Every structure is written in C-alpha cells, then in structure tokens.
C-alpha cells in the first residue's frame, strides 16, 4: 500500500514544462527522496503534493484517495519548509499548538500533545522559548515537531538542511533518519545534495529537467545507474567522453578523446555512437591491470581528506583521473609515474550528451 502516489503528474507554466509526467509511489512508513539539481522541478512537484499548485495533468493520491480537489489546509500532508517558516510572533509551544488549534482539538489535550511531541524530538520543556532563542538544529526539530504533532499521512521536507552549516548538517542527517523511524511516518524528502539522499532514504528518485531518470534504493542508484545523468549526479565519478569502436557481449571498446582506449559495460549504445564513460574513484586501483582498463600517467597532486583522500593522476592526453586513496597512506609523491587499473565491469558507458 502506498501512502502517497503520483500518477503521470505534469505541470506546465506557459510553454515551460516544470514537471513532466512523473509517476511514483511511496510505501507506507518509508523514507523517499527526490534528488535533483536546482530547477529540475522537484520543488514544484512537492508544492503540488502540498496543494499550493495544481497539476496540469495527472493525479495525486494520498492513502489511495485523490486529493486534487482538496485545499492545502484540508490535506493531511504536512510540510517542513526550506527556511522552516516557524512563526516568529509565536513562542515554541504556540507554534506547535497552532495546527492543533486549527484542527479544533480540545484545549485541555493540546498542552499534553505539545509536551509529548517535544519529548519525542528531544527538546522537553522549551514551550515558552522564543523561536529566535533556538539554535539551527533545534529550530529544525521544532519545525518537524510542529508537523508531526498532527500525525500526518506524509511529511514533506523541502531541503530543510540547506541552511545549516556542514557539521550540523551531517548530524541532522542521522537525526532525521532516526526521527523518521521513531514516528514511523512516511517522509518525502527533497534535496539537491546526493549524500543527504543516499544516507537517509529507503528509496531515491533522481530527477532531471522535470522527469524521473531512475527510482531505486541508494545502492542501486550508485552501483547500477541507468543513465549518464544519474551516474554523474549520484556520487563522484571520473567522466570521459569518447566513441564506441565495437560492442561485444555487452562490453564496449571505447575510443576516448585524446587517444586512450578503454573497455566499459554498455547497454543500448551501438557501434560508432558517442558515449561517456563513468568510473568511480574507489574502483580505480594503483598498479597495472589488463589492457583496456589500465591507464598510465603521472601523479599530479595528492588531495588529503581523511577517508575521502584522492590521488589525481594526469594521463599523457591531459585527463585528470581521480583515484580514491582511502587511508591517505599511499607512498606516492607528486610527479611519480604510475599505472592505474579498474574492474572493466565497473566502468559504465552511457550515451553522451555531446562528444
């Protein structure tokens, strides 16, 4: 059973199609993310679910019931806004009680519910505080509590971590995931940050130019992207443009720009078509491998970043290849001649936009 279902939803603004025939279903109690670059239509999609925009075509169902004719205040979908939109003229308790009062809950029960939800988000006893007295992470939790107190069918989150600093963002990712577990509510999360989507979600939809490119678990998206866009957008990847020489057994020989030849897994691209080859940095190892998945070059620079350290290798044709160096412990020095290789199955070729 889906808590939220979108059936070929399309939204056009004049001649511009912001959301183009998007269909998906979010299973009950799961964490679903829509990941895409800014301007891809993900916010428009969320606003349609919340009811602030009407789809040009298609249908939106919540708990198997179409909500297209319901006004925003009648839909049991609550939203955490990008800048949270906590009401500055109310204190924390009033902010949370607002929805309950709109719903017409008995006065006596409101206080208890506010107290209970504040306990659940780990901020007991802050009812009397002003919103401006809270830290960024606390505001975040209040914004979620304000929605969750109403027990929505679906909670929409519109890049709520965007305004936080990096350290707090990392922390809130884990916390959001825990909150979602705790409330057992369906979360629909919108972001342009692939790491947020990968870390928190059960399922991720990658959106580009109004369309869903792929829906899948974070691992599927990472290991088996279906398009060049997904491969490039989700996770880091080395990206080389080239042209297919010949395809055999699903493996393509690709003539890269600059002269190197590599072998890559390819589906659907025929001989002579221009492609882009994606190889993730952590797939590449130092040392020589079989022909077609080995490049030689010179160490251009060493980028230390703890577990995310990289070695940049410059090939004779001028390509800069990122190679993962997890421990940051390689004995290489700048200027060293090296060979690098990878498992050809993990080099993916997709039809290129332009080659």
């Amino acid at each position: 059973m889906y808590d939220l279902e979108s059936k070929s939803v399309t939204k056009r603004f004049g001649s511009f199609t912001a959301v183009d025939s998007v269909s998906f279903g979010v299973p009950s109690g799961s964490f679903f993310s829509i990941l895409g670059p800014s301007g891809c239509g993900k916010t428009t999609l969320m606003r349609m679910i919340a009811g602030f925009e009407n789809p040009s075509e298609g249908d939106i169902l919540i708990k198997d019931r179409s909500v297209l004719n319901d006004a925003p205040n009648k839909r049991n979908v609550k939203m955490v806004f990008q800048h949270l939109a906590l009401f500055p003229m109310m204190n924390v308790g009033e902010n949370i009680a607002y929805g309950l009062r709109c719903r017409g809950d008995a006065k006596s029960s409101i206080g208890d519910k506010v107290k209970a939800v504040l306990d659940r988000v780990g901020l007991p006893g802050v009812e009397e505080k002003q919103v401006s007295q809270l830290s960024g992470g606390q505001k975040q939790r209040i914004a979620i509590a304000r929605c969750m107190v109403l027990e929505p069918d679906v909670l929409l989150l519109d890049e709520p971590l965007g305004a936080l600093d990096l350290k707090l963002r990392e922390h809130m990712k884990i916390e959001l995931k825990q909150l979602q577990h705790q409330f057992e509510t369906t979360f629909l999360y919108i972001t342009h940050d692939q790491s947020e989507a990968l870390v928190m979600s059960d399922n991720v939809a990658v959106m580009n130019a109004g369309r869903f490119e792929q829906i899948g678990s974070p691992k599927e998206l990472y290991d088996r992207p279906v398009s060049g866009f997904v491969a490039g957008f989700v996770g880091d990847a080395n990206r080389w443009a080239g042209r297919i020489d010949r395809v055999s057994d699903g493996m393509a020989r690709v003539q890269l720009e600059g002269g190197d030849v590599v072998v890559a897994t390819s589906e659907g691209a025929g001989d002579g078509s221009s492609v882009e080859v994606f190889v993730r940095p952590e797939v590449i190892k130092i040392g020589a491998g079989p022909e077609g998945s080995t490049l030689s070059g010179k160490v251009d620079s060493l980028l230390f970043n703890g577990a995310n350290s990289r070695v940049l290798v410059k090939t004779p044709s001028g390509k800069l290849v990122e190679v993962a160096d997890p421990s940051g412990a390689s004995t290489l020095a700048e200027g060293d001649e090296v060979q690098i290789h990878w498992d050809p199955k993990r080099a993916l070729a997709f039809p290129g936009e332009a080659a």
Partner: protein
Amino acid sequence: MRSDTGKLSLILLMTPFALWIVLLIILPQAGIGYVSLQEKVGPRQYEFGFKNYMDFLGEPIYWNTLLRTAWMSILVTILALLIGFPVAYYIAKIAKKQSRAGLFLLCLIPLWVSDLVRAFGWIVLLRETGIISGALQWLGIIGEPVELLYNDMTVIIGLVYTVVLFMIVPLVSTLDGMDDALLEAGYNLGGSRFTVFRRIIVPYAMPGIVSGCIITFMLTAGSYLTPILLGGKNSSWFTEQIYNQFITRYNWEAGATFGVLLLLFTSFVVWAGLRLTGQSLATTVAKE
C-alpha cells in the same frame, strides 16, 4: 586618529538632528508649557499658576471639542487602517514585483498636490453646486441640489483620504518583509484563510499597524486645514480652538494651554492604544 574621525563624523551627523530636536521641538514646547502656566492678573501682569487649565476644565465646550477631536481621529485611524490594509497587502504580497514600484508611486501622487488644493478638490466635488450634486440631479436621483459639505461624514472622508497614505507606507514595508512560506505554512498546518489572517498576517504586520495608527492618529488630531475647509463652522476641531485663542482672541496663555493639552491627550490616547493592543513603542520601531 581613527576614533577621532569617527567622533567627528558622529558629531557632524548628530548636530543637525540635535539642533532640529532642541530648537524646533523642545524649546517651543517648553515655551508653550511656560506660557500656559502664566495667569493674567492685569495688563502685562502675570503670575505663575494653573488657572488656564482650570478654565479649560470649567468650560464644557472646550473639553468636549477635545474629546470629539479624539474620537473622530480614532475613527479616522480605524477607517484608514481598514482601507489601507488591503491596499498595502495587495502592493506587498499580491502585485507582481515589477508593478509594485508603480503602485507605490500611485499612492504618493496625491502628496504632490498641496493639502489646500486637495481640500478644495473635495469642495468642488461636494458643494451644493458641485459635481456630485449636479450629477445626481442630472440623473434624476434627487430633485434639488444637496449640500454635501459641512458635516462630520465629509470631514471624516476628507481626513481619511489625507492620511491613508501614512497608513499604507509602514504597512507595505512590514508586509514586504514577510516570507510567503509563513502563509503557506499557516495553510499547510490546517489554517483557514481567516485563521491565517488573524494568527499570522495580523501579528506579523502588528509593528506596521501600530506605527501606521500612531502616525495617522497624530496627523489627524493635529490637522487643521481639512476639518476647517470641509467641516466649516460645525467642525469643532480642537486645532481650530487653538488657532482662535492665539489669532482671534490673542489669548496666548489659553492657546498655549490648549496646545499642551492636545499634546498630552493625544499622547495619552497613543499610550492607551499601545497598552490595549499589548504593544510597546520599541517593537514598532525596531522589529525583533
């Protein structure tokens, strides 16, 4: 060296302001306060005392005029708020970004014409032989000319028209700062249009509402031209009394007393208004 230039620029900036406050506001008010406490005991003979204030209290027509002025000013303020709020909301929230400046400018156009000319504009419209009366006769709605001037309604309309702009400007600037997401959050959490208006828009706009109301009330209570021209002899506006005491009767002591009383009374009304709405002057000036 640096702090010296800082100090110098501070002094240069503050001097005109201080001069303005001291020379044009504090000194004259102190002078008027002083004059109001002079009792005339004989030709060019004065004693210190509160006789002028006692005279004011002893003459119902005086304090009735003051009360009437205050009530009508409050009414004008409320009407200006009721008319100004939708206009301000439209300019700040509904109108497209590009047309906002134009709409705002349209509001300012009446200010390009002097008060006096605008008041005469109303007279041209409303007098017995004026445009409206003529039009109504021509349409056959009324049989003979009607005099639309010289009644309270006309005075109030004229005053609202004069001051409504001063209500709109502060309202536009506060509403302009309101994030649309607040309204959407208000609806999203289940609020009806009315709830969102009452619990989100109005509280958010409160600083603008309060400052707009203070400005319009003070301007109305202190206005002279509009009530006199549109209300005629019946207007019984308190500023008219002040004018009469100073100019017609040459009774500066009584005029000064009235002036002090007008200031005290309007200040009291503003204070009471702030108390009633639970606002403080500080929050209207500096938001958050």
